[in-house]
Each structure stands twice: as structure tokens, then as C-alpha cells.
């Protein structure tokens, strides 16, 4: 077990420099430390000016996503011991603009998420007095996987389509659209299909599949997108038939 490990961390201080640089720090190595612990060690002991986001330290909040040795990872789940002997490269998430050091701007995703209407939509709301909308365990199972998303953006950072074509609505937003489409209480699948069939929607996806590989919650956004494409294609063929819907 080495006594210490080197981290090469992206620094970008917009008021001082016009481009990011890499700065190296030597941190003690501990078997139970993750990359986030090392960053916190740097912040507490070596350089208080280093900026990064984190909160829960347990893979729930989705705020600690960074590139570790070039792959998008939750740094609270990336053990130092998996990257020995180092140096370990820690960079801000790919394809997002950098605000400072390891902090990126995700506003783009917030707009895209809203666009797919990720909430339950009913043609007609039941009066309150009629009680809740009930759901069986099987009905829950239909969409549960897609509801596990923590908006960590690792999938966007793994998606070369998003890198090349930033208008692409992207993996997590589509997976979350599908989460509501598959919910037995929701009635707006058709509306979302139309939104997702627009130019920047699901058809931009070329099925690289990397989003599903990096997802820490096994959401499988690539699967969601292909399922939606199938629905979209079937819908289009039905439209061609004389007895089709519409």
C-alpha cells in the first residue's frame, strides 16, 4: 500500500486565466478513501481555493460527477485503490461548460428536462375526494428502473452525440420521459412522443450505448431511447396505413 497518491486536478480560475490547467497534489493514500475524500483533503489541508460540488457522499444526490482518468464517475463512489499507482486525473464532466475548477454548468439539462414534461399528466384530474391513484407493484415495476435517475449527468458526459451536437436532448431527459410514459397514472405518452420526435429528440441518438455503461444507478437510458424509437417507428407505420390512428 503506497503512503500517498498524486492527483492531477483541473484548475480554471476565470478571473486569472483564460484556459484550464492541471495542478498536481499529493494526498495520503487510504484504502477506504474515494476520490471525493482526496479532494476534500486537498480543500481542507492543501488548497482551500479548489472548487467542486458534492453533498451526500453516498451516491444519492448526483452532484459529485467528474471525469476520473477520462471516464465519467461519481467521485464519492470511485475508490482511490482502483486507480493505483496514479497519478489520478480528475477533470470536470465532459461537454459541459466549466464555471470554475471542477464545477460545470448544467443549466442546459434543466431546460431539456422541463421540455419532456417529467410529471404525471391526466386528461382529466380526479376530484380529491375520490382518493389517490392506486398502482399495483407490477405497474410500479414497469417504470421503476427509469425513476432511479439522480441527474448526475454522467450519461451526458459519456455521449459523443451530445458532445458533437449540443442541442440533442440527451439520455437522462429521454429516460425520464419514458419513466412517465410507462407510469399507469400518466396519460401524456403521445404528447411526449411528439416532443421527442422533434429534430433534437431521440432520433439524434446513434446508439453508442456508453450512457448506460456509465450510469451509476443502472437506469439504462440507452434502452429507454431504443424503446421509444421502436414506439415512434411503429407509430409512423401506423400513420401510413389507411385505418391508422390520427
Amino acid at each position, binding site marked *: 500500500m503506497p503512503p500517498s497518491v498524486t492527483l492531477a486536478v483541473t484548475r480554471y480560475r476565470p478571473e486569472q486565466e483564460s*484556459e484550464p490547467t492541471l495542478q498536481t497534489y499529493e494526498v495520503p493514500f487510504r484504502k477506504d478513501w474515494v476520490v471525493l475524500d482526496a479532494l476534500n483533503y486537498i480543500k481542507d489541508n492543501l488548497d482551500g481555493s479548489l472548487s467542486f460540488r458534492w453533498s451526500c457522499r453516498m451516491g444519492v444526490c448526483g452532484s459529485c460527477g467528474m471525469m476520473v482518468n477520462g471516464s465519467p464517475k461519481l467521485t464519492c463512489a470511485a475508490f482511490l485503490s482502483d486507480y493505483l499507482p496514479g497519478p489520478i486525473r480528475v477533470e470536470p464532466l465532459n461537454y459541459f461548460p466549466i464555471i470554475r475548477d471542477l464545477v460545470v454548468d448544467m443549466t442546459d439539462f434543466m431546460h431539456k428536462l422541463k421540455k419532456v414534461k417529467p410529471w404525471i399528466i391526466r386528461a382529466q384530474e380526479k376530484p380529491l375526494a375520490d382518493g389517490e391513484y392506486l398502482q399495483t407493484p407490477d405497474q410500479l415495476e414497469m417504470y421503476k428502473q427509469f425513476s432511479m435517475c439522480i441527474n448526475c449527468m454522467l450519461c451526458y458526459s459519456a455521449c459523443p452525440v451530445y458532445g458533437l451536437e449540443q442541442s440533442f436532448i440527451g439520455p437522462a431527459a429521454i429516460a425520464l420521459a419514458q419513466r412517465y410514459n410507462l407510469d399507469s397514472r400518466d396519460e401524456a405518452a403521445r404528447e411526449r412522443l411528439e416532443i421527442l420526435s422533434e429534430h433534437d429528440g431521440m432520433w439524434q441518438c446513434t446508439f*453508442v450505448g*456508453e450512457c448506460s455503461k456509465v450510469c451509476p444507478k443502472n437506469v439504462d437510458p440507452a434502452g429507454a431511447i431504443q424503446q421509444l424509437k421502436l414506439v415512434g417507428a411503429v407509430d409512423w407505420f401506423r400513420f401510413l396505413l389507411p385505418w391508422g390512428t390520427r
Partner: protein
Amino acid sequence: MSPGTQYTPYHPKWYRRRMSVWWWLQNRSYVYFVLRELTSVFVGLCALLLLWHLRALVQGPEAHAHFLAQMRRPFFVGLNGVGLLFILFHTITWFNLTPKAMVVRLGGKRVPDWTIAGLNYVAWVLLSVAVAVVLLRG
């Protein structure tokens, strides 16, 4: 930056990285992906060869003999060999991806991925056998 992208108005100076033209060499899945896209060129070429073959057949025995002679040239043998490899790569990778797009539920349970991929292979073998039977009989 494309016009569809929106960022916080009046935001401080953020830095945008450029995507390298070599992005597809950065990890193995990207390489596989680009290879899979490239297979379309070979699938297209093999389709053209097939059309050419059909045309030779329609034109009569002489044209067909000429076609076969052409096919024996190293260039076409090579093209067919490489084409076959790419088509196999195309078929196998896509078959393995089908379970992603098709969620089949039987009796409330999701049919396992290998079954769905496996059915593609079974269909492939059955169709190949059918074609072989037709060819060998004729």
C-alpha cells in the same frame, strides 16, 4: 455552440472545451460504435455486388461467366472477405443489442435479454438452413 443550447443569461465567463477529432479513439465502446457505423459501407457494397450478379444472370450465360471470372480476381475475393467480416460484425452486434429496444413481458415478468437475442440467432440459423436447402436442391 448550436442555437438550441441555453445557458444561464449573464453568467460568468465559462470555458468550453473542444471535442477532439480523435474522440472515437478515446475508449473501446467508441471504437466499436464507429466500426459498427462503418459496416454500413460494406453492407452497401455487398448489396451492389448482389445486384451486379443478378444483372449478369438476367443477361445470359456469357455475362454470368464473365461475372464469375471477375469475382475470382484477388480484388473481389478480398472485398468479399472483408465484406463478410464486417457484415458478421454488424449482425452480431445488432442482434446483441435487440433486447435493449424490445422489452417483452410474459405473465408480468420481463423476458430475459439472452432469450430475445437468442431468438434472433435461432431465426438466423433457420433462415440460413432454408436458403441452403433451396440452393442444394436446385
